């Protein structure tokens, strides 16, 4: 057949028309083939919408798969390292999946929409691996990224906003729960999930009703401080929440070229996501070996003295003359914690919680560069974890 051609250039999401109206700074970038905003008017104020009011982020470009069929539960359980049999319908599970060497291919969220029906959301594209892993299972795996528009609605007034929109039922959702609700004559999914470490929801809906949902959402949010946000604001929030980002804090195993560049879930601090009680999952044997022999790397969350972000810094065991033991992968001054925080990777011999490490920070003031060796304390858990994140039913703010 002649005349066939794929879409040229960047795609736009179903929310693009609305976002373009709000945009004042013209800063966009490409995310998995789509045009998305770095910021709409000021990333600093957008960030504070996440922590103070309601922030709306378009996550339509997230890669989404639908997994269904009689063997779907067994397949999903076999695919990822955690026990998925204990995830009932109406729950969402954060999970990682590994190759046979126990190296992380990606992390993502798995939504159990029905007894035999799952949605998997991830940063990267994995249909090849998902189908390879399906050998022997009666299961159907379909790519549905473009079929499902998605918005993250995050922040302390996010529930109040949805409530004003008539979606008060979501008040019953506990973190990592999901429900289907009727909207504009169709069924949409709302989950209490997000990438900000704050109270928040994600909405998954057919693209045909996307603009209408946006309009009603923003009308409802007029008095609850609603703001569209771009990726810059979200990135700061996710570092504060201590979440990892594929291609930033770890390299998806199927893209690695050089030896030693990949990470196991144990090396990423995800022991809690690996269930050796399961008889079989991809990478089980290698991970069991690693557990016996010890890991090479350790992911650390760092609380760093001073206020200069430790962007791209090397990590040392001693302030002077010590060997370099790792590097920072994400770093920021946290406005909400008033802490200088970072995620990093160190040699597994170092970096137990409470240990003091050192980071070599370079920063610029009026063109001149300065170098500062700063103490970095290894801390446990997220930097930002307010009680409102878990409160059910959520408060008005």
């Amino acid at each position, binding site marked *: 057949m002649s005349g066939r051609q794929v879409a040229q250039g960047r795609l736009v999401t179903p929310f693009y028309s609305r976002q373009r109206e709000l945009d004042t700074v013209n800063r966009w970038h490409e995310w998995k083939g789509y045009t998305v905003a770095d910021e709409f008017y*000021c990333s600093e*104020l957008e960030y504070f919408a996440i922590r*103070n*009011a309601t922030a709306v982020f378009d996550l339509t470009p997230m890669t989404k798969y639908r997994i269904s069929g009689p063997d779907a539960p067994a397949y999903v359980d076999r695919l990822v390292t955690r026990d998925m049999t204990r995830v009932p319908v109406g729950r969402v599970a954060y999970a990682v999946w590994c190759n046979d060497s126990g190296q992380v291919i990606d992390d993502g969220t798995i939504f159990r929409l029905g007894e035999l029906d799952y949605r998997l959301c991830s940063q990267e594209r994995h249909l090849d691996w998902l189908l390879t892993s399906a050998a022997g299972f009666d299961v159907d795996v379909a790519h549905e990224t473009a079929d499902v528009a998605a918005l993250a609605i995050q922040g302390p*007034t996010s529930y*109040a906003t949805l409530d004003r929109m008539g979606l008060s039922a979501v008040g019953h959702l506990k973190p990592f729960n999901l429900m289907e609700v009727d909207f504009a004559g169709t069924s949409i999914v709302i989950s209490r999930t997000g990438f900000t470490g704050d109270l928040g929801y994600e909405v998954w809906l057919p693209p045909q009703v996307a603009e209408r949902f946006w309009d009603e959402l923003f009308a409802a949010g007029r008095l609850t401080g609603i703001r569209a946000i771009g990726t810059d604001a979200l990135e700061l929030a996710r570092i504060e929440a201590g979440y990892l980002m594929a291609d930033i804090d770890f390299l998806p195993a199927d893209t690695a070229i050089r030896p030693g560049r990949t990470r196991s879930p144990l090396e990423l601090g995800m022991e809690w996501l690996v269930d050796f009680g399961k008889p079989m999952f991809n990478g089980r044997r290698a991970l069991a070996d690693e557990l016996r022999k010890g890991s090479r790397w350790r992911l650390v969350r760092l609380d760093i003295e*001073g*206020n200069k972000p430790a962007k791209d810094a090397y990590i040392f065991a001693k302030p002077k003359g010590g060997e370099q033991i790792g590097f920072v992968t994400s770093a920021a001054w946290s*406005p909400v914690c008033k802490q200088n925080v970072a995620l990093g990777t160190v040699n597994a011999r170092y970096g137990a919680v409470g240990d003091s490490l050192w980071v070599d920070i370079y920063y610029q003031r009026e063109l001149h560069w300065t170098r500062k060796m700063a103490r970095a304390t290894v801390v446990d858990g997220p930097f930002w974890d307010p009680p409102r994140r878990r409160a059910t039913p959520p408060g*008005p703010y």
Partner: protein
Amino acid sequence: MTRYDALVLGAGHNGLTTAAFLAQAGLSVLCLEKNDYIGGAAVSRKLYKDWTYSNCSYVCSLLRPEIYRQLNLAKHGLQVTPFGGSVTFMENGDYFGSYHDPVVAYREMARHSRRDADAYTRYRADTRRQSRLIREFLLTTPPDPTSWRPRDLIGLLGIGRSFAALSEEQMLDTYRFWTLSVADYLNEYFETDVIKAALSGSGIIGTALGIYSPGTAYVLLHHYMGDVDGNVGTWGYARGGMGAVSNALAGAFREHGGELRTEAGIERILTKKGRVTGVALDSGEEIEASTVVSAMDVKRTFLDCVEPEALPSAFLERVRHFKSRGSSGKLNIALDGLPEFPALPKDSPLYYSDMHFVDSMARMERAYDDWKDGTWSKDPYVDMVIPTLVDPTMAPPGKHFMSCFVQYCPHRLEGRDWTRAEREAFAQTVIDQIANYSPNFKDLILHVEIRTPADIEAEIGITEGNIFHGELTMDQLLFNRPVPGYAQYRTPVRGLYLCGSSTHPGGGVMAAPGANAAREILADLRRPSSVPESFGDD
């Protein structure tokens, strides 16, 4: 009789800061507060239905991030959200806006004067240079210039070194800056009256001086040296009102075992042979302690609470003459909806900014003339904000809390007490001024709290209701604050310390005086201190 290692008198933000650092060092500390709520002038109060009022201080930028972090105030519930810009409404129906977005800010300034917009670059650099000098010393104890002790010499050397690093021209500019009036300073950069009027406000806030009074350029700096997350000069709202600052400090204090008692006013600070021994409360109860820290201002501490015979006469005389003159009042208003300002385009980001209604230098100075005549300004400089546009926690959705800081307003009217009718006339002056620019404003008013300096003094205890615990003029700053010879938080009474805004580096919700005082006290007690050092701008 109960015994504590240390008593802190006054649960304002500085008292709580000192208390928290002393408790963190392992001392048993009791903090006493005369009111039935804590916070002093950093307070959130429900005075009308579901509305939360920041009824004294109303914005937050000076609060030192080092202290915020060291005392883990985020964990104790403090969240500061920045807001942007300001607007000055003009009598001719126009306005001058200062936007959070620097690109738009430039364009707006150029709408009034392209030359001024370009001059702003130079103004900003010069002002930031001065501010950088000061910021370095906020979390340090001022060195005593008459002392030969090594730490004073090192401190003086530090100041000298920062100063010496400036070019000759910059040094001379610095001398001038510290003594200039804000009007003269601005005249060196700008030609447009409204731009100068808008910028000059920061030079007089909380100060019994006019924009042409020498020394007001420094006061401008005091409002520029704060930051929110490193954005120097940015202001923010404490989520839940300014009481969130005090509540978080109290949380940190309690976390380390500190005890707080409200409704415990101080009748006397007890001394024996030149040493403090404790306090007597209004109730007659006495509490013993060998360390007593007063967060009250220097005048209230020494003129009201210490027997004069326990103090050197010259010191007492200096305290008597310490300038703490009431010059500003406040209106706190609950609103049924958002007032419209027809001069602004609908949905202008300037709705989120602080608003002013005096558009010329002459009007700014006339406002001061009224104060000198012993009355409130009939055309006042009002710094008006609507925090509920940003903060969802302070009023029901769609309703608003409005804070109007009003300059000038005297402590006493023509030398006598305010009458009820005069207080109301003062409020009406402010309401009328705002209504000139917002036709629906008056109809939206649900409740007004009127605060003259006399009211602030009566409730918070600050002498004459001066928001800075004493004016920020060169004669009362650095090693002269509060009085020469006693700038290091110590007093003539051994074991008695000051930690309020009467001490270096002065007023504003900064917590630096409280932290610096704690460092000195712990040094005297030979205890390790966790008071942080400055992050530094370099």
